């Protein structure tokens, strides 16, 4: 092998992965085999398997995972089918609401549902006044409802893409062969969108398993693995790090299974058809039309509800943490006077992480796409690992590895930036390598034949062509970075607190007004980034997945 620039990039990449991924994850894997005194033991895994508390958490994780997945599948398929097959007024507005649900921070949903349906919730109170009593939203039912409305966009975006790609001639052929409409859906359309359906469903499942904020706020005793790991880690007295890592391992294994399944399904059963005959949207009439509109708007509205609630509550008049009648800007004043450093932290950390992601992701993406050999395909595989790592696990892993010399990073800003960096890096690598594979190599060859050296050809031709995609990817990484809660929650100290962490604390402290204002600010920042991303590469909602 010749030593050149790309060999260096490959070596650098492996070093990066070793330090930021293999070392922490390895230590988590091993950490579960030691007790508090540092002696090797199987006791942690034995407890995990035998103690009812952990068995229940494991079972609960599966229940919320699959429950969230089915909810998301139901809502997402209805949404996708109606929007891609029927003429819906304001369909762009509806899919905007789906985007809002997707980019809103994970726990704002939980909080807003509490505002409406909690013990003292608005809707519950209203219903009680007219004599209807419904149970508060806490517990499993609440978690599942929030997950369904939070994660349906994954299914919706995947499936509507697939439905838009079903050649209408196929359905017409089936019709001409004498199939009834229902048979047509069952035998033609469903098999064709099944890969997208299963991929979107598993995506919802993976996110539901890893979600920490929702069960933490809504669970009220309904514990899942992510919350158990955090509880064990953060307990003031008797913090049990090795048990927390043992749970992390269980969580990694669980999500790894589903990620691999998702990859497998999204590769299998992909049908490539020609798109000569694009599907057309049918104009419904009468009650069918009303029903389709009602379904689409109801789902879209409920999904966007958290955002709407927090926007409204952020403008309510408050005194201290208590809401007063009427509207005011006190919550935003409090951000301005007391929480400026939190906002600044979030922006600085996210921007630094994204800068690192863009630089490293572009180089590694080029390496993976253009210098294909065994080394790079291994690399491609290694980049799957951050996908399967729930944020809470990365956080615990980083704390346990970078806690002392030679790398004492605990409590620094760098450790938060790095944890965001490694989790989002795979997306950047994939975006770049996909973009590069779509550019014909003959473009660079043309530049070479015209007198540009290979490196200058890359700069002059390839870089300008992938730049919009890279910028768009950076914007989307920024959205993920600034909304990151679970790993920062483990890694923050007073100086390095970020907006999502502060919102989480404010909600626990009962200061809903400030939490809502901070959430709204976060959402506005995310919204600007998404808008910028769409400007750079055209509106493509699926890039948000």
């Amino acid at each position: 092998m010749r030593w050149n620039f790309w060999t260096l990039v490959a070596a650098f990449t492996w070093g990066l992965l070793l330090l930021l991924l293999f070392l922490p994850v390895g230590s988590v894997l091993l950490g579960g085999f030691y007790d508090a005194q540092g002696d090797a033991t199987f006791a942690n895994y034995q407890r995990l398997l035998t103690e009812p508390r952990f068995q229940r958490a494991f079972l609960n994780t599966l229940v919320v995972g699959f429950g969230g997945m089915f909810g998301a599948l139901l809502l997402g398929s209805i949404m996708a089918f109606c929007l891609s097959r029927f003429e819906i007024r304001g369909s762009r507005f509806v899919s905007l609401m789906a985007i809002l649900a997707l980019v809103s921070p994970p726990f704002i949903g939980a909080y807003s549902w509490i505002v409406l349906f909690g013990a003292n919730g608005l809707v519950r109170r209203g219903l009680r006044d007219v004599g209807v009593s419904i149970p508060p939203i806490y517990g499993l039912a609440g978690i599942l409802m929030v997950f369904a409305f939070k994660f349906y966009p994954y299914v919706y975006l995947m499936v509507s893409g697939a439905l838009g790609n079903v050649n209408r001639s196929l359905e017409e052929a089936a019709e001409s062969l004498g199939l009834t409409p229902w048979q047509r859906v069952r035998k033609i359309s469903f098999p064709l969108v099944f890969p997208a359906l299963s991929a979107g469903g598993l995506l919802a499942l993976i996110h539901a398993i890893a979600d920490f904020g929702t069960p933490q706020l809504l669970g009220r005793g309904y514990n899942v693995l992510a919350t158990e790991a955090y509880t064990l880690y953060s307990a003031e007295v008797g913090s049990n790090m090795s048990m927390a890592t043992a749970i992390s391992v269980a969580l990694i294994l669980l999500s790894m299974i589903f990620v691999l399944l998702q990859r497998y399904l999204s590769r299998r059963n992909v049908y490539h058809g020609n798109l000569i005959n694009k599907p057309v949207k049918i104009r419904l009439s009468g009650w069918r039309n009303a029903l389709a509109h009602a379904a689409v708007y109801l789902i879209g509205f409920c999904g966007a509800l958290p955002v709407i609630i927090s926007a409204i509550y952020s403008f309510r008049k408050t005194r201290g943490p208590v809401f007063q009648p009427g509207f005011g800007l006190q919550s935003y004043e409090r951000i301005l006077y007391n929480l400026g450093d939190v906002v600044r932290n979030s922006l600085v950390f996210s921007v630094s992480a994204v800068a690192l992601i863009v630089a490293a992701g572009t180089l590694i993406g080029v390496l993976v796409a253009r210098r294909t050999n065994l080394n790079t395909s291994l690399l491609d595989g290694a980049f799957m690992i951050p996908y399967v790592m729930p944020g809470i696990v990365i956080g615990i892993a980083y704390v346990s590895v970078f806690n002392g010399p030679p790398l004492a990073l605990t409590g620094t800003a760098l450790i938060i930036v790095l944890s965001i960096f490694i989790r989002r890096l795979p997306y950047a690598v994939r975006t770049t390598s996909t973009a590069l594979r779509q550019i014909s190599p003959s473009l660079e060859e043309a530049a070479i034949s015209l007198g540009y050296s290979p490196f200058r050809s890359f700069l002059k031709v390839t870089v300008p062509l992938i730049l919009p995609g890279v910028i768009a990817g950076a914007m989307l990484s920024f959205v993920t970075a600034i909304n990151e809660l679970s790993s920062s929650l483990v890694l923050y100290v007073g100086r390095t607190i970020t907006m999502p962490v502060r919102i989480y604390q404010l909600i626990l402290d009962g200061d809903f007004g400030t939490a809502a204002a901070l959430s709204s600010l976060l959402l506005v920042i995310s919204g600007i980034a998404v808008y910028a991303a769409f400007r750079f590469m055209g509106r493509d909602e699926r890039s948000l997945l």
Partner: protein
Amino acid sequence: MAYLDVVRARKEFAGFTALQDVSLNVERGEFFTLLGPSGCGKTTLLRALAGFNDLTSGEIRLDGEDLRRIPPHKRDIGMVFQDYAVFPHLSVFDNVAFGLKPRKVAPAEIRARVGEALEKVRLGHLAERLPAAMSGGQQQRIGIARAIVIRPRLLLMDEPLSNLDAKLRVELREEIRALQKQIDIAAIYVTHDQEEALAISDRICVMNAGRIEQIGTPQEIYGDPQTRFVAEFVGTLNRLEPSPALESDLSHLGLKAPRATLWAVRPERLRLLPPQEAEEASEKEAVVLGRVEQFTYLGREAHVRLATDLGPLVAQIADPGLIAAFAPGEAARAAIPRDALMAFDAAGARVKLEG
């Protein structure tokens, strides 16, 4: 020594040899075509000339200079690509000017030369447009202008017309031919389309499985193929089945070729005789009897497939007009002129006829 010399060029990829000791030479101002089926090595050779893939062994000399020692971006060779490779982020003007920038050409001269090149490919009016929305033919014109504007020492074209529709292909190939003669540059053109090769080239090199089958003018390639592969790849061939009928026809014509294992004749050399006339065949023709199996009318020509003693034969009728029509089953006679017969040996080489 010729302008371009390729000597025993050899290229090995893992597991197979793409070029097996290919030698050829091209003169200044010559339009030279590499013709062959996909996988024959023609593109590999072209890319070796451009420098994108180096040879495993062999020599490439351009104007006496060893090309293999020069990196591709310093070779001064213009290249036209099958997928056009037009830079989508640059305007038509900037695409064409792209190669002049590293050559440190003054801005005023860039404008003049780009304008001139665009006029040559009839795109002068579109200079400020972005190429993305342009048709394939227009994009390839940009590709050609971009390659010739740098006044390269050699112009390479890799199947430049194969992504265009049939009518445009004919139109553009004539323009390319005229342009190449006008700027008087040595051009190497790769194609798998035999008609295109015949129409455009000064000389054609027919390649197969990494080897050269024959190099010659279009007339030599079509009219006097030296191998069975060339005869079958360029044009079509009626193979005459070995039979007593063939033996008697050959002896009637007084032809002999002891090593011949295959006798063949091109469809357009077969002459259909009116069935009712009892015209006596001359010594210069053998007459075969048969029945019409199929009649295909193509406008400017028609094909009649006959079942004969010599096996199935296709006869081509030029300018069939309104009346020519043959019903299947109809009896028919065809004459094979003596000088239309070709013979090949078991290895596929052309055999010289005796007698």
